[in-house]
């Protein structure tokens, strides 16, 4: 009797899950497969052409000067964005953890940029980092530097090919470091005061407490932050569109932007699909180990 009811429950569960399972299979995994198929085709005009050409699109892509620049930009962006957000986020969390007055107020201020879309961030930072010119005058950060007598620090920001993507990273760090702060703050609050006390009793100074007690305990938080920021960084597109476009000499170009242009402007649908596949592989290098890690942990619990 009991066994049969269980079976019935199971059936209902299965039926309830089925629609979303089918939808995810078709619209996520089906389309991933389709993109992979297109990436190995010869589809280079509007009219689809599914002739199989193997890995030719990938080989061509890696030899493409623009794609090489894009990969370099992406590496620089990811490195700066991750380290910047983690360091600033951690420092903010540590400061807020000192039981400052009006902590809620500061927390909200630091967290707010995250509620903006990258499009808004992009437009704002585009104006802030406007290079200006001697004839038309400066605006934004350059104007600020001028006013406080630091005019020699003025820069072309994202319009200077030597700065390029690094300027975009600044905007991204501004937006996401508050989020990292919130994650670290939650982590810090979870560390019992006794552990710190014990370390201090053992003669550790404040620096050593953080270095040898707090940071190791926060490692899961750091890992989570890296995964979340990392996949945002690899997929970055909207911030670039709103802030800079591909830039002079592709100094602010990223693979996602190139994918859009080559697909819908050069009609190289196969090449666009190949870029999509490469992006997917890069993101999965980051996500899959994390998934394995968390599944294993769930099993342990």
């Amino acid at each position, binding site marked *: 009797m009991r066994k049969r009811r269980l079976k019935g429950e199971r059936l209902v569960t299965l039926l309830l899950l089925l629609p979303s399972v089918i939808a995810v299979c078709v619209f996520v995994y089906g389309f991933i497969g389709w993109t992979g198929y297109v990436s190995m085709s010869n589809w*280079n*005009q*509007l*009219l*689809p052409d599914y002739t199989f050409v193997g890995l030719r699109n990938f080989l061509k892509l890696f030899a493409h*000067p*623009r794609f090489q620049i894009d990969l370099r930009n992406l590496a620089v962006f990811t490195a700066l964005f991750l380290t910047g957000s983690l360091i600033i986020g951690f420092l903010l969390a540590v400061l807020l953890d000192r039981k400052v007055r009006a902590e809620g107020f500061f927390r909200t201020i630091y967290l707010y940029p995250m509620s903006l879309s990258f499009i808004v961030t992009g437009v704002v930072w*585009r104006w802030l980092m*406007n*290079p*200006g*010119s*001697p*004839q*038309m005058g400066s605006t934004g950060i350059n104007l600020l530097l001028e006013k406080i007598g630091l005019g020699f620090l003025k820069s*072309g920001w*994202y*319009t200077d*090919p030597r700065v390029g993507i690094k300027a975009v990273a600044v905007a991204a760090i501004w937006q996401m470091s508050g989020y990292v702060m919130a994650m670290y703050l939650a982590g810090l609050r979870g560390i019992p005061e006794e552990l710190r006390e014990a370390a201090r009793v053992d003669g550790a100074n404040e620096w050593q407490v953080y270095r040898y007690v707090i940071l190791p305990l926060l490692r899961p938080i750091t890992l989570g932050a890296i995964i979340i920021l990392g996949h945002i960084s690899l997929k970055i597109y909207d911030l670039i569109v709103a802030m800079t*476009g*591909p*830039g*002079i*000499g*592709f*100094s602010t170009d990223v693979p996602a932007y190139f994918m*859009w*242009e*080559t*697909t*819908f*402007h*050069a*009609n*190289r649908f196969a090449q666009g699909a190949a870029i999509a596949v490469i992006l997917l592989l890069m993101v999965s290098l980051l996500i899959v180990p994390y998934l394995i890690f968390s599944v294993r942990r769930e099993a342990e619990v």
Partner: protein
Amino acid sequence: MRRAALLVFLGLLSWGLVGWAQPGKEYTVPADTTLGAVAQEVFGDSAYAPAIMRATNAKSLADPSFLKVNVLDMKIPAGAKLWIPERTWAEAFIAFWDPNRPEDLFGGGKLVVGSWWTAGGEAEGLNALFEIYGGYYPDVQIVNATIAGGAGFVFRAVIKPRLIAGDPPDTFQLHAGLEVEGYSPETYLTPLDKLFEIEGWTEVLPKDLLDLLLYKGHFWGVPVNIHRANVLWYDRAIFEEYGLTPPENWDEFFTICDKLKAKGVVPFVMGNAGGWEAAHLFETILVSTVGADGYKGLWTGETPWTSEGVTQALEILKKVLDYVNPDYAALSWDGAGEYLIAHKGAMMIMGDWTNGWFMAKGYEDYGWAPVPGTRGIFDALSDTFCLPKRAPNPINALGWLRVCGSKEGQIAFNRLKGSIPARTDLTPEEKALFNPYLQSCMEDFARDAIVPSVIHGAAAIESWVTDFKDAVNLFLATKNVAATQASLVEAAEAALAAMGQ
């Protein structure tokens, strides 16, 4: 005050157009008959019956005193009122109507017009076309499906998936020339050769433009206008102050630049935020160094990209970059134009839509000349409208194309858009309706050698345009002449091979 007068004038003009824009005549049936017999009588051919049915049904939607014809072979009772369309419309209808689509015999429905005309001037021009269309076809509901973005940058990306998915608008905008290759027209568009023939457009459109419109032996779009890409705009106040005259060649250009730079004026302004503006500049420099025929040959394979003229053009571009505004990467072309308006920058090179923008800004102190070394050459681009194969309302779109190609349509549209009509049969009185720049542009267009713009879709297929643009964009940072020329050669080889397929 002047604006109000203009509005009144335009109002009268459009009212006048509606007034005489009734294509056809009323016809009361004397005795019981059929549409075939009526068609035989008025057109001399009973095959025109479906055209009469469609025209009468469309009319009856607005005026119920006209007969509603339910089937083609319906008995028409004596005394019934029919609407006989004008002959060219009837011919066009018969040429394009698909007998498997009886729904097209009833009129009404929508006309979805896709374009990227959202800014001042161009949006008003488009509205003028809508007004004329509404006068001809009051039964049709017009849907203005615009998507913003200069030179159709975003629009094209949206329209392509819709074409593949079989869900196109009824008609949409594309540049005349090889841009049409990017839409695989043999699969997705309807050839318009018969419409060109019926409307006599092959007689009134310039031969260079007709050559440009032909792709794989067919016409795929109806041109509404002509823009010129190779124009040098300059601030007259600065030029007068320093006693300068517009440069005729690049040596003169750089002499002027040196003089102005010493005075603290930005000699040459440009923007490149859209990513295509520098390539536009380079295109016009190319025209100046290899000449009209040489330039045309670059896109057909007759002029090699390894030639000296291409090297010279890159050297000139490199030198121009020494004189540009430092913030050019952050500005669009109109942002760069602000330098001229503020009298802080002296010259810029941009297409003649700049003229409309200057007027909209109330800036009158500007002068124009051909880009140095291109006097007598007209670097042209043209906007056209096409008919997608799977357009939901092809007959409504057909009416739209006729308006686009008509004289009244082109005059009303171009005066507001700030371009010149594609038709060359304007009378002197009609030409006088246009502003001084456009009048001088019409004269040049009639006299000059016409070459197709590459950045604006005329000269090359889209993949080539993208490679060309990318090569120039990379050059802005590297300033490496040899490497850029090599990548231009490579792009040409790949594109010519693809076109040979």
